[in-house]
């Protein structure tokens, strides 16, 4: 067992107790390596697990929604327990267990009181290795997915995001909605569901972080029991590398709503890009920095055009994107769009200031400890780090990467990454004076 003591160093002027977050890497017999943060101050154990290459990008053609469907069924009965028995057992012991699918991975999250840990891990293991996929449960969850699709269809921000991804990744699995659509959900059979689980949930794809009231020896035994019966290797479908390349221009989705809900974006970068940290710092200034960003200042503070406006750089396994969003009354939607375009152009052409660089770095380094403020947050953060291929010592090094970013770096990545002329805008609403300049993707 490798044991690493890592200090969460906050690189700020002034004194701060260099408190350690002690990440242990433990070898779980027959399963592999897991990260553990031991803390016995509360009688709670939290675990997050992720399966790589098991997300919605793996949904078979015309069966979009399969990964989400499987996630919805994992706590609907396993082993010799049907849905009612399984859920009743969770409820009796107050075990929280949930599953979800993102584009690249499927996730499991569980939280239990220490006193129920043995049963909790047994149930988690059953859910992942022996899901039943009973016919009645399948129809129940199918109905819930139909409802989720209908809800998304009446939620302007969901409509806008869905259209944006469809345009940015046309022909690639990332273009498809995570929850599928009514037709694809109808087409999914029990065989599709069990085949998806069997071919994607395997030890070789598993990433685990466990946090809380548990010793390394206990953790090993619990996880060996839960995950040991998984097959060794998954057989995912290869997903192609892709560059987000939505057509530059505007796509209006007419809806009778008073506020235009707007999503805009273009290609970004992946997590392993050498410019990642410079992009993070640059984006803080543009639209990532809450009340401190240029976009919030120009759109909200100065003009009262919106309640929210932001930009993010989101990395996937096979692509990166820059995405932003704003909501403005129909009468002034065009004004918001113009200002956002101007600000992006300005940052690209004129760069940021030393003061903006300093503020971004101070915030991004100083706020890092907040990512470790609860068991659930710690587990989530540690799984994310493993998925990105980092070692536990990343936690100690991370702020130095931010500190190393110079103004020249920020200005260089602004030129490299910001391309206002390439933005694809999806406007959901009834915007005055804004019309489609590009056709909608099916």
């Amino acid at each position, binding site marked *: 067992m490798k044991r690493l003591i890592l200090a969460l160093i*906050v690189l700020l002027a002034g004194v701060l107790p260099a408190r350690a977050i002690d990440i242990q890497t433990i070898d779980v017999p027959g399963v592999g390596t897991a990260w553990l943060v031991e803390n016995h101050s509360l009688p709670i154990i939290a675990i997050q697990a992720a399966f790589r290459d098991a997300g919605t990008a793996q949904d078979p053609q015309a069966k979009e929604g399969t990964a989400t469907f499987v996630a919805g069924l994992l706590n609907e009965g396993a082993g010799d327990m049907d849905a009612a028995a399984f859920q009743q057992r969770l409820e009796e012991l107050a075990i929280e267990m949930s599953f979800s699918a993102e584009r690249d991975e499927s996730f499991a999250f569980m939280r239990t009181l220490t006193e129920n840990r043995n049963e909790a891990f047994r149930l988690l293991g059953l859910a992942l290795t022996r899901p039943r996929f009973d016919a009645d449960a399948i129809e129940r969850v199918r109905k819930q997915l139909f409802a989720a699709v209908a809800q998304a269809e009446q939620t302007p921000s969901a409509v806008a995001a869905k259209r944006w991804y469809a345009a940015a990744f046309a022909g690639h699995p990332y273009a498809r909605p995570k929850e599928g659509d009514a037709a694809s959900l109808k087409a999914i059979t029990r065989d599709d569901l069990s085949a998806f689980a069997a071919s994607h949930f395997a030890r070789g794809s598993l990433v685990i972080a466990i946090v809380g009231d548990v010793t390394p020896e206990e953790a090993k035994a619990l996880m060996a029991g839960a995950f040991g019966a998984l097959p060794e290797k998954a057989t995912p479908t290869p997903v192609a590398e892709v560059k987000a390349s939505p057509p530059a221009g505007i796509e209006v989705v007419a809806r009778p709503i008073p506020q235009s809900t707007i999503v805009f974006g273009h290609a970004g970068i992946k997590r392993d890009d050498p410019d990642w940290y410079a992009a993070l710092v640059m984006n803080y200034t543009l639209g990532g920095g809450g009340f401190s960003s240029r976009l919030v200042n120009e759109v909200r503070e100065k003009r009262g055009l919106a309640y929210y406006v932001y930009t993010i750089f989101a990395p996937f396994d096979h692509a990166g994107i820059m995405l932003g969003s704003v909501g403005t009354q129909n009468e002034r939607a065009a004004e918001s769009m113009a200002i956002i375009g101007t600000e992006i152009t300005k940052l690209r052409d004129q760069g940021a200031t030393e003061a903006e660089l300093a503020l971004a770095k101070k915030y991004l380094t100083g706020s890092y400890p907040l990512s470790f403020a609860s068991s659930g947050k710690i587990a989530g953060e540690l799984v994310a780090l493993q998925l990105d291929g980092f070692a536990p010592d990343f936690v100690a090094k991370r702020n130095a990467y931010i500190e190393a970013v110079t103004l020249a770096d920020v200005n260089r990545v602004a030129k490299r990454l910001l391309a206002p002329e390439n933005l694809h805008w999806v406007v959901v609403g009834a915007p005055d004076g804004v019309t489609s300049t590009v056709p909608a993707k099916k």
Partner: protein
Amino acid sequence: MLVFKAVKVWAAIILLACLAGASPAAAAGVEVKTYTLKNGVELLVLPDHRAPVVTHMVWYRVGSADEPEGLSGVAHFFEHLMFKRTKRLKDGEFSKIVAENGGQHNAFTSYDQTAYYQSIAADRLPLMMKLEADRMVNLNLKPKDIATERDVIIEERRMRVENNPSALIGEQMMAMLFMAHPYGTPVIGWKSEMEALSYDAVMDVYRQFYSPANAIVIIAGDVEPDAVRQLAEKTYGRNRGPKAEPRQRRAEPPALAARRVVMEDSRVRQPEWERVYLAPSYRAGESKHAPALSVLAQLLGGGPTSRLYRRLVVDDQTAADAGAYYSGTMYDLGQFGVYAMPAPDSDPARVRQSLAAAEASVDAALAELLQNGVEAAELERAKRRLRADEIYARDNLMTLAQAFGRALTAGLTIEDVLGWPDRIMAVTAEDVRAAAQAVLRPEGSVTGLLLPKAEATKP
């Protein structure tokens, strides 16, 4: 079971909040130190040394229900304006200082409270206390500051409410449920009144409610209580202000008629059915029923083992999801709600039928409960679940601080919060039945149906 991203509780929209508060949670094992400063500031310190971070919250006993009539939304509007300049800080400087110290901050307004908070490295706490103490008494708002921010809150209303038919019917239902009491007015305000909010109206909120005696400061995290107390004396302790005045709200007249709200909206793709009952809260009305109502909401509608889920989703198959909730941490009356989401359909006639079927299932489940009471096993499960939730709440500084802040600003005491788990564990089957009989009365309820409009075209 699919976890719906937006579990809807029409009744309780907390503006700007990132977290929905649990019940008056928290517990036996929680270490809480309390102090009252000479000027009336109440200080709570919740030490937690797991990480070198702290959550600092300032709660004021003012919410939308304390607003003068005709000025709906002014409490929330004022909350936004608290981020403008003070006698010491320029416009925008507050947020900048928090950010350059690596802090995250925000604020929210609800019916009974307004709260401001920062999460930040623990050694930055003194600075945060200085900033909050400063704006408690030194806000230097100018008439020119308010126009753009008023546009912002109206955009906030468009986003949260007017773009969202589900939120719109929720407003209509609350307005029907509370015929006189200000809980019937949305926290964010009615648009026509928001548009007219003036500089004088917001300054009246500041003068009347923002004073040491009306404030509760809660600090959770990696701190030592005595040191925090000394800091508080040096910051908040120096503020002066008037005594807090008793909260005066209009009383709710007796509810004598079951009410129905039917809303057709062409934007609706997912129909909804919900019924909300006037209920006692932990403070007001027949508050002895409150713990039993918390248990009732759990066993009736807290997840896939609950009665409503079993009946509607599993057995009758009249809904894709169903549940119940109890909003009991209120200064005045609370609400008890049940809801169902039938299968989506764009044909209004069929939707009417499916809503009627869901309603019949809910009514049957409620009738059975009122007649036969609850079983020992389900009661035990619900109580254990609530007790565990309270332990889970302690895992998150913000959740814990929120539980205390919400309870105290709803007129409860620290003892109420600490004693809550014991009261839950003491609830009997007879208590649950008595509470159900007291609350689940048709004449104290509003039933809402949200459905697509006839001329809706298929997407």
